[in-house]
């Protein structure tokens, strides 16, 4: 950004600590009147150096660290990391464990979307919506808590399987929670579509066209809101997703309203996936039989090699590139986060909009700063 300020222009620094920010990052916006002429994102306020830390942890210890890359999608982060090691070491995951993983990851998608939507709603001045979504999120969190034993950072996946089986009565709990959640999602949609003030703040604001989105490298709900049906679960299937029936939710408009609509639809799809899983889930072991892998994991040495494994995060494409040199620690791990390009693409997106709309646009992107900074 050019630091020179012309007549009737000024530079406003938003952040790193600002009520509208979904995490600490700084937006330097140059304004002419109330219109944004130019802007720049500064990040790194919570850079933790996870890539370096992972190089110095054994494979098993790494599971706890990757949980903390993005705290809203801890299980999908684990899936990407564990999937890398499984590909390198050639471990087959038994079907029951795969189903449990899918159930947990979809639950994690639901809670992440609920928080993202609620936070964003509070940014556009719809604070009661934040209350509603957090209320329903707590039910989902309780479900996850009953399986993994923690609310945010789960440490649940193990190489070749999962740590614990589903608890007794889990299916009934899911049924009970989903019955109320379905109603809640419908009511959110009704609230969003009937509120004139909300609509005038979102429809046609922050339009992202498919070409620009592809150029920026966006993935996940912001991309699918522009009409591109790009979903790793379908395009590059992992786990048991090929056996499941689900559709990729797509909207055409590409504006703020469409992005929220995609999240609402995805939550319904996730609930549908979980119900299928609970019907189809076979009995069987949680770890591959005849191997040493189990809840008490042995000290593993992974064969030398390189692998890139990607999964569909709640926010888009989450990838791990892992290089192993045959020792018990990875040689290099690169984390490809979905929000990294999205946050980078914020300045061209907010060029020419009014100051008040920055909040709506940045919030609808559902940026998780912790993952950008790693």
């Amino acid at each position, binding site marked *: 950004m050019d630091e020179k300020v012309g007549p009737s222009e000024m530079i406003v620094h938003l952040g790193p600590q600002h009520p509208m920010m979904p995490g600490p990052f700084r937006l330097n916006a140059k304004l002419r009147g109330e219109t944004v002429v130019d802007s720049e994102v500064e990040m790194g306020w919570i850079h933790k150096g996870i890539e370096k830390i992972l190089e110095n*942890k054994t494979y*098993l*210890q*790494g*599971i*706890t*660290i990757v*949980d903390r890359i993005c705290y809203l999608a801890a299980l999908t982060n684990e899936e990407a990391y564990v999937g890398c090691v499984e590909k390198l070491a050639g471990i087959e995951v038994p079907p029951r464990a795969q189903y449990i993983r899918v159930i947990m990851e979809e639950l994690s998608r639901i809670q992440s979307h609920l928080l993202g939507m609620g936070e964003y709603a509070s940014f556009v001045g719809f604070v009661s919506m934040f209350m509603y979504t957090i*209320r329903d999120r707590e039910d989902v969190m*309780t479900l996850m*808590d*009953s*399986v*993994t*034993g*923690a609310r945010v*950072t789960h*440490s649940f996946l193990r190489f070749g399987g999962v*740590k*614990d089986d589903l*608890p007794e009565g889990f299916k009934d709990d899911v049924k009970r929670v989903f019955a109320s959640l379905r109603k809640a999602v419908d009511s959110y949609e009704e609230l969003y579509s*009937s509120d004139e003030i909300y609509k005038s703040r979102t429809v046609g604001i922050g339009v992202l066209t498919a070409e620009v989105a592809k150029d920026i490298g966006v993935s996940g709900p912001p991309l699918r809101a522009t009409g591109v049906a790009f979903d790793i679960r379908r395009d590059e299937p992992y786990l048991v997703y090929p056996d499941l029936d689900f559709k990729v939710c797509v909207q055409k408009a590409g504006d703020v309203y469409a992005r929220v609509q995609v999240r609402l639809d995805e939550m319904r799809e996730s609930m549908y996936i979980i119900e299928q899983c609970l019907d189809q889930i076979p009995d069987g072991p949680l770890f591959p039989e005849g191997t040493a892998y189990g*809840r*008490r*994991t042995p000290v593993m040495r992974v064969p030398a090699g390189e692998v890139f494994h990607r999964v569909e995060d709640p926010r888009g494409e989450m990838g791990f590139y892992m290089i192993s040199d045959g020792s018990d620690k990875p040689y290099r791990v690169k984390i490809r986060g979905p929000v990294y390009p999205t946050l980078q693409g914020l300045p061209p997106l907010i060029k020419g909009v009014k100051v008040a709309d920055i909040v709506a646009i940045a919030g609808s992107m559902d940026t998780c700063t912790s993952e950008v900074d790693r």
Partner: protein
Amino acid sequence: MVIKNIIRAVKNIYFGPTVTRMCPEVPTKLSDRFRGLQKLDKSKCIGCGICANTCPNNAIKIVKARVSPTSDKKRWFPSIDIGHCLFCGLCIDQCPQEALENSKVYLTGIIRYDHCDLLFTPDMLAREVDINAEKEAGKEVSRWTPQ
């Protein structure tokens, strides 16, 4: 639309489900797998140090401690720095003797005024010393309030 919403809100006040968890007056119901402060079974522990090697955060150290409150004999047991502990449960999974287990202590027992109070010795992990003991108590008491 506005009137409809108002009616719904009023209905919710009287007929809606209660949402608030009245903590701390009513303790929140925790799941069975909740990972709180670790509990040590001194009779099972062999002091092998696998937990210390597994810990992702180097929060465990094997130290010498009394075998039981009554005897003077000393053996090796883990002590945990709760200020570093991630409550990930890896030490519990990897323990070959199943000497460590999860307990549901996460509130009054471990919230402290000073950083140095966050070190949990084997006696405290085995609940031989009351972890709720305040400074003014001044003496060791073998009472432990389960949560």
